[in-house]
């Protein structure tokens, strides 16, 4: 078991910031990278790209459906468009276009949602995207990614650009605890075991990965050995990692900043049911809309912190006998 020193977990750049910086880098490397934005470039951080490559940055105004369609047209003419807005807007207002114009003809469009989950905070539930994992996973042929920190986002945005086909990436507003070193390798569809363990496994992504690590550290002190798996790619799901967790640890907790309906937990549970059924618990939002508040306060109130993950692990472990 690695000690506390292995994980920094101090606040690092937000994943949306890492996305914006990486996008500008990609712009320098590949002239086919283009960006579509719906009047939120200063929030989604596509502004870095826009400043450097104004001719490849297409302002679409506050009109997400048209923006997704323009992205599809650019992709069908050979460009690699990154189409970005708040997750809540691009996935919900653009969903029909994501389905018919992008997924159906399987076009090479990269959709990046920012301000995901409830950690957008003060703006409140109309801007909080808590359905997007389920929605994005229901788009046929899409890769769906939810990175945990800056290093993960940088690597996975690059992987998304290199992947041929549609991708949805979920990023957040607040500073993200640093989990990974800059040199960490990421592969689409390949989960990362960040902590080894034998008594139970926590499968998490996004901001919940750091919470899962904190929970594992707490439980280690109680003598419970918890494996922590970063399921940064929700689709295609790393079913081998899930199946190993079920077989080798016999109890699984899934933790995500999303409604428990339709999220990562549902996909993991399906994979568990199809491999080796075992006790499972789920940390997520339970059929409710949140409210305004600071990100940290909201994560506490809606049950998305290390304490909640640890309680779920204890429950799952108790159910093993």
């Amino acid at each position: 078991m690695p000690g506390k020193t292995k994980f920094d977990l101090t606040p690092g750049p937000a994943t949306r910031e890492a996305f914006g910086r990486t996008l500008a880098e990609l712009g320098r490397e590949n002239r086919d990278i283009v960006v579509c934005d719906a009047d939120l470039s200063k929030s989604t951080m596509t502004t870095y790209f826009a400043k450097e490559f104004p001719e490849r940055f297409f302002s679409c105004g506050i009109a997400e459906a048209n923006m997704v369609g323009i992205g599809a047209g650019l992709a069908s003419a050979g460009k690699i468009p990154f189409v970005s807005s708040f997750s809540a807007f691009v996935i919900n207002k653009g969903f029909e276009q994501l389905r018919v114009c992008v997924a159906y003809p399987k076009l090479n469009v990269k959709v990046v949602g920012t301000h995901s989950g409830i950690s957008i905070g003060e703006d409140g539930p109309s801007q909080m995207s808590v359905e997007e994992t389920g929605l994005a996973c229901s788009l046929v042929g899409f890769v769906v990614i939810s990175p945990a920190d800056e290093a993960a986002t940088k690597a996975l945005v690059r992987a998304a650009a290199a992947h041929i086909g549609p991708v949805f990436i979920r990023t957040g507003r607040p500073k993200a605890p640093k989990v990974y070193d800059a040199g960490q390798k990421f592969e689409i569809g390949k989960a990362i075991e960040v902590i080894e363990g034998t008594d139970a496994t926590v499968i998490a992504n996004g901001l919940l990965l750091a919470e899962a690590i904190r929970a594992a550290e707490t439980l280690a002190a109680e003598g419970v050995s918890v494996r922590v798996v970063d399921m940064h790619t929700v689709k295609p799901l790393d079913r081998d990692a899930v199946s190993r967790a079920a077989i080798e640890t016999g109890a699984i907790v899934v933790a995500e900043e999303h409604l428990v309906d339709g999220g990562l937990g549902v996909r993991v549970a399906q994979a568990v049911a199809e491999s080796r059924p075992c006790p499972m618990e789920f940390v997520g939002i339970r059929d409710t809309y949140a409210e305004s508040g600071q990100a940290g306060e909201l994560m506490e109130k809606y049950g998305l912190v290390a304490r909640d993950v640890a309680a779920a692990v204890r429950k799952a472990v108790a159910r093993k006998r």
Partner: protein
Amino acid sequence: MPGGLRFGAPMLKSKQPMPKSLEELQAIAKRVRQEIVVMIGAAKSGHPGGSLSAVEILVELYFDAMRIDPKNPKWPDRDRFILSKGHAAPVLYAVMAEAGYADTPLDKLNTLRQLGSVYQGHPDVRFIPSLEASAGSLGEGLSLALGMGLAAHLDGRPSRTYVMLGDGEIQEGQVWEAAMAGGFHKSDNVVAIVDYNGIQLDGFVKDIMDVAPLAEKWRAFGWHAIEIDGHDFPAIQRAFQEAQATKGRPTCVVAHTIKGKGVSFMENNPKFHGTAPTPAEVEQALQELR
């Protein structure tokens, strides 16, 4: 223009090997109408009215106006066509089959809508790679066309993108998001064509959600707008030439057409928006279309 319009003149450096005369275009249009009626009759479902209203425009595009090479459908500098009103797929299939695309076989048109046919109910690039877009959910094609136009502009390609919208279709809000964006981005390599036949599924457009005045709407969104008779080949050709010459803004061709054009009992009859002709009706239609 001295001498008036000259069909067969090599407009826009056409890749069409043999530019067509007016008589040839009319002959192709007649065959396409027959094919539409027969294939929808064979399928026992489909949308004849809005297919027949669009025949001359598609024939003019594929046999005269567009720089295309059916033997090399992915030629990067080609012009593109998107049928945003995807339910009129039969007219697109028939015209592409006549144009000689390898993935739109003429002798398979009558498999329309059958399991395993490339001729899906609505255009589907998975089955016909030469199509520029899948369609079927209304209101989306203009956005795609803008994206293709922006890409062509970035790459310095001469490609122009044509997109046909239904008059009922433009009730969709996304069309006006795209119209605003086309004017804003000065997308002068994009041409929208509204098939203004005045009828949608439930009845007359003016009774369901009137879209008039149409040209004025497009002009207000920063487009050059031209109103024509959408069954008049010289008028269609003139409109596309005017669009080509119009710089700094996109063009919308408002094509006044007749739903069900060419078949007396289908003309201006809302029933034939989405109803297939019976075998007897197919026979009668074919007699009228001889």
